[in-house]
């Protein structure tokens, strides 16, 4: 599952969270990283807020499970979580890449504006909630209310989706290979075009996940909730 390290990877700067604090780690990551290509965080042990608000093209490996908000607000960084991730992984990411080797809890990629979040296992509730432009690729299933109010960006779901997929979705686009237990308000299955197949193909390739792009369905907004209409059936 874990991505193989590229050959001749530079020696990492190591942080051992059994001896050092998350505060020390983040303070280091917010400093001048121009001579730092790689940081390895050992014994993360589910700590919260690991590598938040990074703004540098650095590779950060978290050697185990991360708690809440790992790689939150990431800019430019490549953050690899070699275990599972708690709620809000890569929340409000702006750019860069965040990978979760295992499972991700609720709110993965919440309100992300950019970048790519890859979850190789399943994602919990509200994956991609309020998404604002980032891309998310989930190797497994997603929980209920995923892509709730998602405004922009794309989510590729290789497995199934639980209840209320894409509720109140705006211009974000969802691609799902498995079953949809139910769609949320204003979310509809739309035809896959050649552009959609190309998008899925390229997102899967970027994520390093193999799946046949043609087997995906597209879910988007029916745009019926964009305006209040006094004559229409009220949904509020």
């Amino acid at each position, binding site marked *: 599952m874990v991505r193989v390290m590229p050959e001749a990877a530079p020696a990492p700067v190591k942080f051992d969270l059994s001896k050092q604090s*998350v*505060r020390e780690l*983040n*303070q280091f990551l*917010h400093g001048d990283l121009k001579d730092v290509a790689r940081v390895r965080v050992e014994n993360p042990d589910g700590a*919260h*807020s690991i590598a*938040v*608000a990074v*703004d540098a093209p650095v590779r950060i490996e978290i050697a185990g499970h991360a*708690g*809440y*908000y790992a790689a*939150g*607000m990431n*800019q430019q960084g490549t953050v690899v979580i070699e275990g599972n991730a708690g*709620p*809000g992984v890569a*929340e*409000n990411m*702006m750019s860069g890449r965040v990978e979760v080797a295992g499972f991700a809890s*609720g*709110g993965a990629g*919440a*309100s992300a*504006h950019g970048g790519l979040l890859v979850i190789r296992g399943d994602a919990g509730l*509200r994956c991609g*909630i*309020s998404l*604002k*432009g980032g891309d998310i690729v989930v190797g497994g299933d997603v929980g209920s209310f995923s892509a*709730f*109010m998602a*405004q*922009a960006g794309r989510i590729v779901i290789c497995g199934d989706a639980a209840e209320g997929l894409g509720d*109140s979705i*705006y*211009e974000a686009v969802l691609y799902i290979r498995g079953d949809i237990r139910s769609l949320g308000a204003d979310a509809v299955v739309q035809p896959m075009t050649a552009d959609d197949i190309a998008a899925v193909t390229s997102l899967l390739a970027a994520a390093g996940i193999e799946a046949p792009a043609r087997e995906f369905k597209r879910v988007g907004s029916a745009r019926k*909730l*964009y*305006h*209040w209409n*006094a*004559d229409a059936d*009220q949904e509020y």
Partner: protein
Amino acid sequence: MATRPVPEIPIAGDGLQREESALYDRRVLDYIERAAATGLYEIRGLGAKRRLPHFDDLVFLGASLSRYPLEGYREKCTTRTILGTRFAKKPIELDIPITIAGMSFGSLSANVKEALGRAATALGTSTTTGDGGMTQEERSSSKTLIYQCLPSRYGFNPDDLRKADAIEIVIGQGAKPGGGGMLLGQKVSPRVAKMRTLPAGIDQRSACRHPDWTGPDDLVIKIKELREATDWEKPIYVKIGATRVFHDVKLCVHAGADVIVVDGMQGGTAATQLAFIEHVGIPTLAAVRQAVEALEELNVKEDVQLIVSGGVRTGADVAKALALGADAVSIGQGILMALGCNSGSYVQGGKHYSAEADYRLLKTAPGYCHHCHTGRCPVGVTTQDPVLEQRLEPEVGARRVSNYLKTLNMELTMIARACGKQNVHHLEREDLAALTIESAAMSGVPLAGTSWIPGVTPT
């Protein structure tokens, strides 16, 4: 069998019977007619319009023999206010305890945001971004800028977070506790839409819950994340709409807030359902008292600062909020009115021009307008319309707002001196008396001329 007495029915000079029902008065009839015609609730701006127990129902007990007053014009009375002393490395230092409430770019024009920033900077106080992100105009004009982290996260990004002087996590607001924001399509201009990542012109509904945390225990972790992101430098405010204030304030303290903002039901909004504005939440007066009691019970009154908002209009209101235990107040609607909201005219190039015709187009008149939601503000305050927004010149707006804040601050110090205080933060509950039983019960201040606090002291 005795005949029933016939009630007297008022007959006007025209001979018509006009017995108005108290239950179905003309306001309710209008409401029902409107609901029947449209099938949609009414959405409007500003705050609760109904009469509520408020600061007006309290008076100060000026010094006389038992207390010693200070000379009104000579003796020092400090208004310096420090917020965020609990955990932040760089607390907010203000010259006055009167701040400008969060109002979004979107609900307000960029000119207005600039005017607010200039006025706040001139008076040594802060402005707050609102639901729609930080504009360059506001950041560059406002020396102390509070950056809101709202459920919608519209335009929220780490670059602006780092540029902010403090962070305010908005749980709710007094006009609509439990509800998200609204911005009707006519105000979702291309620039607003881009900042919020939405299609231009849609009727925007903001989320009412944060996307990445769900309860008070999560909030503890969210606050730590924001602290980590900003290297523990910036104070973190948590803003709540006033409902179960006692418990909510305790949870804010538990979550690690440096500053708690409590917004009563008189607090304004740019657009919300009428039923929300008038029927959800509790009055500011009751909210302050509950918030202060929660802080006192946890013994953190000195560590966690309290900002009160929701219908703070005058220097006397500010003084009363401080006497009840607030460290500062926050003003939204009063600021808009200082800018010209509900005024019959607007100023262009130093001359007044009538706005009456534009009020008429909105089917209202100066003094009655709450049509912020339409984006057709006749005085250019709550609009994104390129023509209307020009009606508020940033220099004029800034001057008016700074005059307003100056007046409030002078009234505040005048009252504080009259109560014998060299520091406005020394005003205390013992300086107040209540004029009504309701206000006495809500504020915990004795009814004037008695020592009676309903629900606290025996009758």
